[in-house]
């Protein structure tokens, strides 16, 4: 279910986020050469489906969105950033399994 994940670019990022509706958004910073980012894709698809209605998940390709990566000071890939009302509330670096992501979301009371 690739549709569960949203994809953004530098130009569309702000519009997509405001259109998303949900107050909680998970940004997944990725790149096409990043193997662990690829490995996390099916996990994030599952998470996006499971939390649909409560949270949106956006994949942010570093090469497409260098400005967004700069704005959130992403220094390594993969990086997950949880936004609540547009502000980062949680950040985690490195490849994560499903349990770690669920714990991250539970920490944000989701």
């Amino acid at each position, binding site marked *: 279910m690739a549709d569960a994940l949203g994809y953004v670019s530098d130009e569309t990022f702000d519009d997509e986020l405001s259109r998303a509706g949900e107050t909680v958004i998970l940004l997944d910073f990725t790149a096409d050469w990043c193997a662990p980012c690829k490995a996390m894709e099916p996990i994030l698809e599952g998470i996006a489906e499971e939390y649909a209605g409560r949270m949106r998940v956006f994949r942010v390709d*570093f090469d497409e969105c260098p400005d967004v990566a700069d704005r959130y000071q992403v220094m390594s890939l993969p990086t997950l950033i949880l936004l609540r009302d547009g502000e980062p509330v949680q950040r985690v670096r490195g490849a994560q399994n499903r349990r770690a992501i669920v714990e991250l979301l539970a920490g944000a009371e989701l």
Partner: protein
Amino acid sequence: MSAAPSAERELPVRAPGRHLRLSPTLLLVPATVFLLVLFGWPVVNVLKQSLFDHGFTVREYTRAFEPAYRRILLHTIEIALSAAGLSLLFGYPTAYVMARVRPRVRIVMVLVVGAAYLSNPLARNYAWIFMLGTRGVVNDTLLRLHIIHQPLDLIFNRTGLLIGMVHILMPTVILILLATMLAVGNDPLRAAASLAAGPFTAFRRAYFPQTMSGVVAGFVLAFVIGSAIFTTAAMLGGQNDFMMSNEIVDQVQALNWAFAGALAVILLGVVLVAILIVQRFLGAGALVDRGGVMARNAPVRVVRVHEGRVTAAVDAVMNRCWRWLPGVVAVVVMVYLSLPLLIILPISLGPSRFITWPPSGVTSTWYSKYLSEPAWRHATVNSFEIAGITTALSLMLGLPAALGLARSRSRLRGPILAFMLSPLIIPNIIAAIGILFFFSKFNFTGNVFSVALGDTIEALPLATLVMLAALRNFDPAIERAAASLGAGPIRTVFKVTLPILAAATATAALFAFMHSFNSLLMAMFVGGINATTLSKQMWESLADFEPTITAVSMLMVGFGLLVFIGLRLLQRRDRTGSLT
């Protein structure tokens, strides 16, 4: 290789007027005991652990043959066979050209192959990630040249995995084939040409059969190494390219050791069956000849091809292109082997926080970061310490072993030689699991010595082989002359034998050092957080990528190149075993 004729009978080292008498066979004891304790027993213990859990059980094996794991096993065999086959297909013409070009050209080609051989495999995998991505060097170049209009899917699939694996396996195959071809020489081709055979016909009928020992040894070694590679599958492969060694690593990290042991035993079984098949069809001498050097002059059974219309048709086509085809393949292979190593430099100097091609400027930021970050500094110190200890152990045990193997006429010599070389033809992940089980029992993990002892299991046979090859041309009469002049056996070794073997010993030391410096498994399994090496730090950086890794990769490749140049200089001093 066979021992020098003058060493046909066992030569006790004896000083005149003294009673000290050393049997060469005794020199084999330290290395044999080391490998029995740290390789033989741990591997047997893996089998035991997988079969006994409060009594005999085949539970782990039943689980290991469930469809999911059967599929992984089949993928592993398929991938290892494909990678070994491709390495041979492209490596053979390359070695063929290298054996026939002028020495100066051969030196350059050997330098390229040797630099690839000694470069850290993880650094090479990273290089391929930078090369093959959608916006990587290959796709970018093809798009700019308008050869393609959409980026090709070259990574995170079987294509990417095979490109990366062949890059790791092919240098081994080429070096083995080159040694065989230099021993065969050009006489068979000249003889066939004098009988009016076309160039390909002469090659097929007179030359190729003589190089079969190299073909077999190269293919089997590539298959063995390929079956145990897990980093390339994780870094370049797709979701269906998960290999047995990846599963074993995952199970070890999940603390399912008995199941990991069962999977390792199954992998070992597959490799042993492959070796038995080769020996059954191609002769027992295919992998290790009587003198103990792989693939040189080993007697192998030649598969006879029925001469008929098909071979005549093939000859007719190939005779036309055989004069240029191997040369074209060799050029392509040289570019393939060297390009990823060269491309890391500009990428590591790029200012972007992530990988971009072409780089938009030049900066030394990532090198400074490598030097300033304690984790990388600590890993560098550990790598040098572990490789230093491994080298010292390999020489202390390997030199007496090589002397013993060259001089002993005992009936035990053959079996001991086969045992000593077995760590090289058994996937290293099995020895690593054995060492993990063994050291954990004694709580001897998490330090540089445990990793160095593990690395010595493979470094010792490598060092022994190098010194054994040098002893081929060593005349024991020189030692007898020293003894007749009153030198004792120990003095003879230090004043006569070791100085003559100095270059070979230094070569063996560099091989042992680089083996340990590039190795990952032992550091992963028994190093813990206290003995993190550069390879382990690079592996862990994969899950949390930042560009310092490009600088580290470049330094690792550069270090491999420097070491290979050092080896070349040593070989110039001592022509024994030189490939040029």
